[in-house]
């Protein structure tokens, strides 16, 4: 059995469930240390980005205590990406609240997950996935040699897997829709969207884009799939 050791980790972070599955045959300490680095990273991200923490950089920016250009490079990168997404989506994606304050939470999760997955690679791991709240960044393949097979939860029945995707190596998958928690999908004018779809899934190389694109495509409804096709590496599909 020792040759078939795999590692599964799960924890609560950033208000959601984070898990990782490592299919490399490596010593336990390697996997443990890699997972610990993920935890340290996600705690740091939450400390700097959470709008619930008055000391976070985002909160300090909103209070006028910190200028965006004086923020850490990660914060600048995230806000820059949010600006581009708002532009590319004609405002469907929006990291600003109605009162003008910024809240990039809708982007940070996917971005942080991709970065966290990169930490596993930096620890020398080659075959794994990292999952945050239903969005997955995969790397390599399963121990069987097969691609990572990702089931898409039935949006009408969370006990059931509707379909599955064998995603290419080092690709990511994200799903937005009513099966998710909360109202973090907003349409223009910061009104909740009333999409005709129950879920929208996007696959592509980078989780930060797949996650954001899924959010945008879900809000766009029928036009969402075509919108994602503008990005050659990304594919969107919906479960009605």
């Amino acid at each position: 059995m020792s040759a078939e050791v795999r590692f599964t980790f799960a924890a609560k972070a950033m208000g959601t469930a984070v898990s990782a599955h490592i299919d490399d045959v490596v010593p336990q300490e390697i996997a443990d240390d890699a997972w610990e680095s993920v935890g340290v990273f996600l705690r740091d991200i939450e400390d700097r980005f959470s709008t619930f923490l008055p000391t976070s950089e985002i909160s300090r920016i909103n209070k006028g205590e910190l200028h965006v250009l004086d923020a850490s490079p990660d914060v600048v990168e995230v806000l820059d990406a949010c600006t581009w997404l708002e532009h590319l989506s004609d405002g469907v994606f929006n990291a600003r609240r109605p009162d003008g304050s910024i809240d990039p939470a809708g982007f940070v999760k996917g971005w942080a997950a991709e970065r966290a997955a990169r930490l596993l690679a930096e620890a020398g791991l080659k075959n794994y996935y990292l999952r945050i709240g239903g969005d997955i960044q995969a790397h390599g393949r399963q121990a069987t040699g097969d691609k990572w097979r990702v089931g898409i939860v039935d949006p009408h029945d969370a006990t059931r897997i509707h379909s599955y995707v064998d995603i290419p190596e080092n690709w990511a998958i994200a799903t937005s829709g009513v099966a998710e928690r909360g109202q973090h999908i907003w349409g223009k004018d910061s009104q909740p969207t009333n999409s005709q779809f129950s879920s929208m899934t996007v696959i592509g190389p980078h989780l930060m884009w797949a996650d954001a694109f899924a959010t945008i495509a879900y809000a766009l409804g029928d036009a969402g799939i075509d919108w994602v096709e503008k990005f050659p590496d990304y594919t969107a599909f919906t479960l009605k």
Partner: protein
Amino acid sequence: MTKKPTLGRQIFPAVALTVVGVGFISQLDNPVGDVVALEGAIGTLAPSASATTSTLVPSAATSVVVPSEVTTTLAPSPLSTVEGTGNCDGDVVTGPTAVFKWGDLQLQATFTQKNVLCNVTVVKYPNEDDKSLSINQSALPVYNQEAIEIGSAQIAVVSGATDSWRAYTAGLQAILDARPE
């Protein structure tokens, strides 16, 4: 987000294959609140020939109710008695109710004598609404199946749903994480 994540303490490596299933059940952060009367629930909740079956693994449901207190005391069964994973006749553990946006979900897991997860049954079911589903044809890599069961399709991970920690602990992904290879 007001609470600090406790990543380190909640790690549960799946290396100890024989006990990890029980490990995940006992780590659920919300203890079982109510024990579902299975004999009634199974009859009404488990569909028969429908493609949208809610029974994840197609073996006979074991209608044994385990009180909540027992879930945390389930030590691994004697390992020497049964070799192999054939008989799904070990401990039966009922998970907590997961609250989804549209309703509650509660799962029940059955283990073999070697504490290998062998069956998952839905005992509380969130939605009986219209389940007529379609998938966009432009999604080339998607294989739409009548009903994909975790066991037979070898799903490694699931996307969508189970977003909150509570939903996760009773949801599909937690079961996959606990499932031995």
